[in-house]
């Protein structure tokens, strides 16, 4: 129980740090990194809530797995756009 609480605090803390960074940073790379940390924090909260008497619920686990795969696609697309923005500024 205490363990779950520690991970819940950790998840909420990750969300807090990432939101703060997203709101105060103008750096595109750091924003993409912040988005990743935010998603990990949300996944952590989701996984802690999935804990039950008979182990961890499989459906939220599947959600989280889907989220991780979608996030890597989003990260790659955002980084490509960020690189393109930099080039457009140079021209």
């Amino acid at each position: 129980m205490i363990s779950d609480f520690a991970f819940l605090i950790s998840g909420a803390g990750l969300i807090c740090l990432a939101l703060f960074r997203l709101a105060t940073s103008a750096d595109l790379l750091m924003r993409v990194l912040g988005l990743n940390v935010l998603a990990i924090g949300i996944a952590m909260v989701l996984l802690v809530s999935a804990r039950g008497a008979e182990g961890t619920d499989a459906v939220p686990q599947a959600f989280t797995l889907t989220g991780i795969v979608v996030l890597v696609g989003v990260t790659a697309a955002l980084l490509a756009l960020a690189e393109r923005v930099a080039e457009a500024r140079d021209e």
Partner: protein
Amino acid sequence: MMLFDSVIAAACLGAAAMALFARDRIAAVAAFLVMGLLVALSWLRLGAPDVALAEAAIGAGLTGALLLRSARRVPKASAKALPPAQWLGAALLSLAVSGAILWTALIVETAAIYPALVNEALPESGVENPVTAVLLNFRAWDTLLEIAVLFAALAVIAVVKPVHPRIAPLGPMMLPFARVVLPLTIFLAGHLLWQGGHAPGGAFQAGAILAGGAIALGLSGMVRPIRWGRAALAGLAILGLGAFVVAALAAELLTGALLGYPAGAAKAWILAIESALTLSIAATLLLLFIGPAERH
């Protein structure tokens, strides 16, 4: 184990703070990698080994590689001093949102309706790992759309056409390293794919490990790129989505339900789809890293 869990949870937060507030970008990405591995460890402790594997391979490994690739190419924003009111507002807002999430997670009694349903339907799903059963059978439709999202990301990158990573040959230790690690990644990917049916593992983890091995090989500078290599990879990337759609339509014709596999043959269907997905995910992730089209 309580102390261990608390230390891991605190270390996740510490690594995240280092990643988010480091001045140097390489240091930030390194801290992000460490955070990903610590998070994978804590998800293992939370009883979610499938997700932990995916986080270690995709969330930490591949995302870290992508960030590192872009670290030098995305210019730093000019550090303009923000007004104190904005700092204060951001701090208050982020504290309020995360506090609300924490509070909700603590007080809301969740009625766990899924575990009973999953356990009841597991024998007829064709696999014994509940997470694989949810991903490839009960909610296979979601996974089909997830592959479509991955493909859409690839399409965005093909349109934007970023520069390719420049590859400088690495030192003399690279060849012995690659000789041991690359065959192991192929072996491990096959093992995870097969194991996904009854134990933690599956197409996503296997595909990510294959892609990681291929990226390591590409960055070693030991192999010359093949001229038609990108076209072949793009074909492979489409193959997974195509095979999944064909399987969905075939199942619709056979059983009248979209992705409702014929009774008794579910295991064979899931394995066939997962095998196609593994190759396709590996090709897609590799293309996300090296860029899908040659730039002129």
